[in-house]
């Protein structure tokens, strides 16, 4: 009993430490990658290639004065970072990095993860309310609306994934992808999961509750020092969770064609895939503007949720009739392409047509001579 507890405690310590290290590496990658996208250098001074910059940032945050606004609800203000932080680490208990490596591999792992990832909403609303700041309240309420709405498509996609191997155990799900990753079977599911996941962690183009140019950090506006660092840590861990979930659920996790099932190789593959997904998320951040809250909501309820249901139904049809695998790929891909085309046609294409018409009109202008308007 004691020995078992010791093993679990060691595993937890290793997990928390490595997650914190992952966050530091993510901060460095984000700053460097984004800087390169924007023709900047990013951090260069602290350590080689600025590698120690995240460490310096973390130290700065820890020694900074931890301000608590006089009018704030002290209890809520203190608790909010913890309420956001704890669930973001808790989900990692069951996320496997190799076939045999997880703190506790649960049979209902996916259910556990989705259940705990919802909890952080409470913390954000608490932070928004407890700060006694109007911007924070706006941000907190926005985060509640946003995160609850995008939780639904995520759950729907997860259900569709669970239907394929008939298991909620993440190890089983990944082992089932040894021949063909689910990304090839459910491209629609991958798209919906990635978009909803980005919305879930509040990153561009869905960084609505932290929008710097509108609510200036939203729920985090009054936080400083260690409290803010905890929020920061939770945010990055959540982002990494989404990246790893994409890697595990859709990109085949540690499985790779012709590769031996070795623990350290498994770690490498999962990390590689997760960091690639993270780079895609950063790419979004370097490219997209931000949506508005009502557009975000209508996108969730009118596009993402119907699409996730379509994903569910196609998977169900495929399973019920026992069709070959490529039929599911075809159905899913067709819907994905159709949706992207409709959005392109309605937005970009129509705007380009308008612009061309206007330019033609401007070119056709004839100057009226002889009248002296001066």
């Amino acid at each position, binding site marked *: 009993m004691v020995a078992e507890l010791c093993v679990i405690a060691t595993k937890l310590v290793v997990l928390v430490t490595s997650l914190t290290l992952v966050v530091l590496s993510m901060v460095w990658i984000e700053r460097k990658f984004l800087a390169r996208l924007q023709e*900047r250098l990013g951090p260069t001074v602290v350590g080689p290639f600025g590698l120690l910059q995240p460490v310096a940032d973390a130290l700065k945050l820890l020694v900074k004065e931890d301000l608590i606004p006089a009018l704030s609800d002290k209890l809520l203000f203190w608790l909010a970072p913890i309420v956001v932080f704890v669930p973001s680490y808790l989900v990692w208990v069951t996320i496997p990095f190799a076939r045999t490596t997880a703190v506790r591999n649960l049979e209902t792992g996916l259910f556990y993860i989705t259940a705990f990832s919802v909890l952080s909403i409470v913390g954000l609303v608490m932070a928004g309310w407890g700060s006694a700041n*109007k911007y924070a309240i*706006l941000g907190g309420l926005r985060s509640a609306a946003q995160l609850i709405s995008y939780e639904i498509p995520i759950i729907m996609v997860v259900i569709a994934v669970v239907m394929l191997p008939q298991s909620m155990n993440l190890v089983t799900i990944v082992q089932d992808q040894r021949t063909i990753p689910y990304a090839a079977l459910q491209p629609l599911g991958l798209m919906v999961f990635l978009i909803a996941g980005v919305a879930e962690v509040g990153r561009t183009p869905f960084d609505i509750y932290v929008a710097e140019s*509108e609510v200036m950090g939203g729920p985090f506006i009054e936080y400083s020092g260690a409290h803010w660092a905890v929020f920061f840590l939770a945010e990055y861990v959540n982002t990494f969770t989404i990246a790893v979930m994409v890697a595990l659920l859709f990109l085949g996790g540690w499985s790779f064609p012709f590769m031996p099932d070795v623990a350290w190789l498994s770690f490498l593959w999962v990390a590689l895939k997760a960091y690639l997904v993270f780079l895609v998320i950063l790419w979004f951040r370097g490219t997209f*503007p931000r*949506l508005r*809250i009502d557009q975000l909501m209508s996108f969730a309820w009118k596009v993402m949720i119907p699409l996730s249901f379509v994903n569910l139904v196609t998977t169900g049809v495929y399973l019920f009739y026992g069709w070959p695998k490529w039929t599911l790929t075809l159905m899913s891909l067709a819907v994905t392409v159709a949706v992207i085309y409709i959005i392109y046609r309605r937005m970009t294409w129509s*705007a380009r047509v308008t612009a061309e018409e206007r330019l033609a009109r401007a070119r056709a202008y004839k100057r009226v001579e002889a009248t002296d308007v001066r």
Partner: protein
Amino acid sequence: MTVEQQLDSLELMVNVGPQHPATHGVFRMVLWIDGERIVDVEPHIGYLHRGTEKICENEQYSQIITLFDRLDYIANFNNEWVVCMAAEKLMSTEVPDRAQYIRTILCELNRIASHLLFYGTFALDAGAMSPVMYAFRERERIQQIFEATSGARLMHNYFRIGGVKEDVPADFVQRITAALDPIKATIEEADRLVTFNEVFLARSRDVGTIDGKTAVALGFTGPNMRASGVDFDVRRAAPYAIYDRFDFNVPLGDRGDCWDRFWVRIREMEESVKIVEQALKQMQEGPIMAPTRRISRPPKGEVYVHAENPRGDFGVYLVSNGGDRPYRLKIRPPSFCNLMSLKHMMRDAYVADAIMILGSIDIVLGEVDR
């Protein structure tokens, strides 16, 4: 009583500015919001008031020019030009051709620089953080040309009554030709990255709409007015200086929303590039200063001169009593007049739209407050 009436609900008053990052300077607006909807907005200006018009009455004409640099500090050359034109018109000074070309080239470059800044900051308002870097990269090329020409990056004080301070550097033409190609490439990039981006379209289409009639009634000028479909560009409607020698289009919007205002400005950069290219070809050697006295003393009289600045119709009303200082100088700043429609456009908008609408008007507080 309905449930809504029984519940004691208040509108939330949110103070945006003067330290808010999205107000583009020391502008403050008080928003009354109901959820995410704006019920009312009250703009507060005056944080940057320096009494320029009054100071002008106490300074000699040559000393006024530098004050105009500080009005619209994104488009300094354009401001300088208007006050020089006003004094020249009053004194009936014929500005030499070369000086006119130098002025036109610098002002059109300044228009590009100003619109580039708008492109960057508006994208930033919309939440895209990369375009501002690209915009500043191109703006820097123009700034370096300005620095080489006038000696200053920001407050140039380069135009004089009757011409310009000194001749341009020897590699002026090469410098500009070399800078124009990457600028053109960046304008195309702006289209691919922002203008026709789905998210950007969703954010700016049909936001802050204002029709042409209301736009004119509320004092809109410049790209803002043209975005509402009103075909009026001072450069073409009442060509001043040498603008009748160039061939350029005036792009017009039709809906008058934020996207139209953005699109018109991006297209105007292209037209300015065209004007600069033509002016570089036409420019000849020659004097750069009309034979004038060191201290200008315009004859008794009054004059109103206006020009197409990047932000709109910039006017100067100058009254002289024959002395070496203006008797009265009234400035019509386009930013200030464009700001009048804020309330109209923000009616029933979302909080996020408020930032977009304010950004799309493209105000410069130095000009609003004077």
